[in-house]
């Protein structure tokens, strides 16, 4: 058995390695080299044709993105914003993340890069004669976020005082016109998964009042549409800040925020992040 194997691997009599002689191996490898060379060439060609055929600015299809996703900042592990007011190390990374996130929103940066747009309507910039002409982005000033702007370098976005800010953002989708020309806003509420009647009110009471910035959590239409990263280079995503002014400490709060826009469905059974976002908040105090 072993000898048979050895003879199969290397047969000194017929000078065969794994059942083939050197020439035979050479020929078959050459054949496969040519064959796969051809296939790889064909594949490369099709890929090239494909890349030539796709528009670099606008995706061919966007049907997966009918409802844009929503996300919070700070991006807590498992969407669970938990910290201890007195222990700064439990919230410092949140503050740091928010600082970093809001860096491009600094009024100075915005003033330098972006244009002041007319509020209340879509900022449409059609290509008149030149295709894919670079688009100007509208200013979103950090100061719009009020107390959640964290303008001072030492600002801790309320985490040090137990009145934390959470920022909400809507995913970018190209040529997305939300709200059918009517104003859109973000609403937040306490919502425990699978909670009913009384419990809800109880939860809302525990969570206390919420303050939204810009006021009413509204997102101006001028930030839409988005023209894609190539032409809309400095596009600044609008942000809404939620300030939990008086949330009960040492309790787990379930908060759900959703985008409130005409014609937008935010109740997908499976996608919990389409047009809404749910997160947990727990403020610990000793």
């Amino acid at each position, binding site marked *: 058995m072993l000898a048979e194997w050895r003879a199969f691997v290397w047969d000194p009599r017929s000078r065969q390695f794994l059942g083939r002689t050197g020439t035979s191996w050479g020929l078959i490898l050459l054949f496969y080299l040519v064959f796969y060379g051809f296939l790889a060439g064909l594949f490369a060609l099709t890929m090239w044709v*494909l890349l030539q055929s796709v528009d670099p600015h606008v995706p061919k299809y*966007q049907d997966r993105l009918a409802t844009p996703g929503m996300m919070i900042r700070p991006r807590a592990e498992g969407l669970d914003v938990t910290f201890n007011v007195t222990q700064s190390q439990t919230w410092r990374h949140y503050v740091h993340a928010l600082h970093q996130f809001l860096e491009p929103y600094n009024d100075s940066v915005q003033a330098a890069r972006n244009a002041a747009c007319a509020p209340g309507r879509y900022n449409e910039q059609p290509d008149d004669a030149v295709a894919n002409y670079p688009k100007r982005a509208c200013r979103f000033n950090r100061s719009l976020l009020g107390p959640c702007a964290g303008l001072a370098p030492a600002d801790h976005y309320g985490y040090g005082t137990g009145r934390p800010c959470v920022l909400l953002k809507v995913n970018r989708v190209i040529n997305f016109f939300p709200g059918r020309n009517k104003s859109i806003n973000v609403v937040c509420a306490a919502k425990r998964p699978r909670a009913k009647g009384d419990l809800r009110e109880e939860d809302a009471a525990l969570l206390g009042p919420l303050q939204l910035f810009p006021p009413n959590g509204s997102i101006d239409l001028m930030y839409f549409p988005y023209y894609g990263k190539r032409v809309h280079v400095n596009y600044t995503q609008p942000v809404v800040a939620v300030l939990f002014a008086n949330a009960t400490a040492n309790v787990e709060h379930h908060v759900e925020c959703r985008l409130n826009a005409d014609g937008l469905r935010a109740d997908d059974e499976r*996608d919990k992040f389409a047009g809404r976002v749910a997160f947990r908040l727990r403020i610990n105090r000793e």
Partner: protein
Amino acid sequence: MEESYELGPRGKAPAPAPAPKGRGRRKQEKLEDMKKEMDVGLVEAVAAERLLRDGPNELRPPRGTPECVKFGRQLAGGLQCLMWVAAAICLIAYGVQEGEGDRGSSDNLYLAIALIAVVVVTGCFGYYQEFKSTNIIASFKNLVPQQATVIREGDKLQINANELVVGDLVEIKGGDRVPADIRIISAQGCKVDNSSLTGESEPQTRSPECTHDSPLETRNIAFFSTMCLEGTAMGLVINTGDRTIIGRIASLASGVENEKTPIAIEIEHFVDIIAGLAIFFGATFFVVAMVIGYPFLRAMVFFMAIVVAYVPEGLLATVTVCLSLTAKRLARKNCVVKNLEAVETLGSTSVICSDKTGTLTQNRMTVAHLWFDNQIHTADTTEDQSGQSFDQSSETWTMLSRVVTLCNRAQFKPGQDNIPVAKREVIGDASETALLKFAEVTVGTVAEARGRFPKVAELPFNSTNKFQLSVHEAGERQLLVLKGAPERVLERCSTVLLKGQELALDTQWREAFEGAYAELGGRGERVLGFCARWLPAGTVAAGTDPEALPEVAVGLCFAGLVSMIDPPRATVPQAVLKCRTAGIRVIMVTGDHPITAKAIAAAVGIISEGSETPEEVAARLRLPLERVDPRQARARVVTGAELAAMTPGALEGLLRAHPEMVFARTSPQQKLVIVESCQRLGAIVAVTGDGVNDSPALKKADIGVAMGIAGSDAAKNAADMILLDDNFASIVTGVEQGRLIFDNLKKSIAYTLTKNIPELTPYLIYITASVPLPLGCITILFIELCTDIFPSVSLAYERAESDIMHLKPRNPRRDRLVNEPLAAYSYFQIGAIQSFAGFTDYFVAMAQEGWWPLLCLGLRPRWEDTHEQELQDSYGQQWTFEQRRYQQYTCYTVFFISIEMCQIADVLIRKTRRLSLLQQGLFRNRILVIAIVFQVSIGCFLCYCPGMPNVFNFMPIRFQWWFVPMPFGLLILVYDEIRKLGVRRHPGSWWDRELYY
């Protein structure tokens, strides 16, 4: 054991067993009864009563494997075990994820359930197939029940052996299987073969004397299921069914397993290799995944996925269905195959040793030629009387036909008026039967003619006279008619009839007679002479001593010669020709006379036109026989006597030197020698046989073919295949079907294996290049078990590539079912093209939705991160996890459709291995066309049925994505046409060796 045996004429009654003990207490009247029974057998009522009491005379089949074990075995094959492991890994992965509180993904649970379902469903299917094939064998057993000759109420009856009861009087003769344990009461030269019982192969004499106390030793007991080799015997049944000696032994030796057929072994072997490769691939990538840095659990899931992708789940079902389809097809064509392997062996047959009588010929003497008016006339020998008849206007014919009609003792059995003459049963010997039927067909009702000429006296045929004569009243005269060996007939003639005129029988006529006689005899025909003479009324009185008749029969008038032969079956010459073109040598082995054998061999084409035997060459060249170069003579007739004097080496030399061989006057033992010689020359030998004595040859042959009608049970048992119509042409059909199924199985397997590569590569790329998963496990299962099963089975319906019977028989040691070129071509060429098609379509679908190919590389960790809800695509858009998941399902579906599209091309190219597709005809195989339509419909259903995305991970895909893989399908078609062209144009070249599977 011994007490219950009746040991015979020491005076013990042959009463039903168990008999009363004690030999002295016997009632006189009972003995009287017994004596009566000895002559007339049992009364039917008693027999029925005993049958009811003892049960049928058959061995209860040994308790087979319990059904649940059989079913269990279906669930525990090599591939099934792999699937179980895969399911277990899925369940573990699910359990661990669940334990970690990751409630999102129950995909692994679904997959585990799907895998278990697959194993169970295919197990049920395999079980059902096994159940059905067991039933086929069972029904076959009923088809050819063993018969026994029994005497009941004084009548000799043929009944099924299982209806025998204790006390029955039965008759056995050479070639029969002893139908029960029998005590012999009379025997003539009866010998039995007890080898199945005692291992002694010497034939043993059976006689009525009790020679020993042990039933196994004594001479007067013949045992159930042993063979009676020669002679006849009469005996009383003393034990039936399970109470027979063999029944007791059989019930002791329980649970004898059926042997696996070679093709089953080959398939299992190949399945083991596949399973081994799957584990190898899985393990390799498990290690790769671990090295790359995937967590252990993920690596295990990869392992599982690779196993699922690589294992051809539907293959076993496909093979089983293909084989049983062929068995069914063969059964319709009168070949009952005892094991499926036989079909496959038959396909590789290179020599057929065929009997003559009954197999090549019709097994009935038929008038072939007549000589009268100094002319040879040809009679119609076709089975259905569709041939040409001869000129019947001559008056000589009138006389000749009268002699033929009258000088004949054969007669039709009554009550057959509505049956065609050829099929009627006749009482009489073979030549008289032939003459009777000939007369009935050509002249008209024989009985009526005989009525007009009542017989006065007759002298039957005997071997001293070699003639037969009878005298009939014919109104005013008497007519003496005589037939017999031509030379004896001529001795008694003085005149001869020519167109009704009596002429003197001069030397010229004698020469003409000799010429005609030699001519007809040289054709291997049996020749009889006929003559007659008118006598005055009262010349022979009724009741005259027949021995005195020859004195009257002198100075007769010669009417003519009639020659008879057992003519070849109509379909045989064509079948022999087919064998010849298929590279199969047909050798005739017969016990008949060499001249007859040679004549039939020439008539059916075993000796082809223009071929000469050494004797003929010698005669032509006027050389002594010894100086004839054997190479000049293609044909050779060897007699048993010559064969006996030959060394095996000499026989091999003869077989090599003469392509056309006829063995005549051979004994069955010599048949075995011939078979062995052929096998030593490397041939795969098929042997036909019917007698008991043929069974060694049938067993020795690579494939034994028994005759369903003429065959003895021993022959049928020894054979692998049974021809229900005894027709040689059916063997050729079998060969054709065998070659066809071998080819088609190859095609099916090649088709099935191909798609494993495009199923496997997504995982390999997924693991190594970290692209979002292009093809899911559930989708793979759908390809394997849903869409691709029907097309792969439909290849079994593929017509033979038109040259299948023009090729040399395959060499089973070299031309394997699954060979290296087949695997390499399927896996590394067509499979590779399919993979490229899948990936092209995948990247197109991704790019058109916003994910460009380069972005996809390395995207997997972020893509699969359930917490990542804002993953940026190539345009700057952000995607939630769920949005990406549906995109991934879209990819699965797109890849699935790509494989389907390529598999359509694949099934089309698999239609032929050598011929161009256009030569084969694209739409000839309707089933295949239906299968493709079915495949596409299932594909559409899976894509567009609402609810599919969340149930089976199929998404409705865009119309154009169906077309992306089509150029690759076209490439497959074109490439394979080029391959086939090369194979056809340059046989034996490197291209042919590497690419022809």
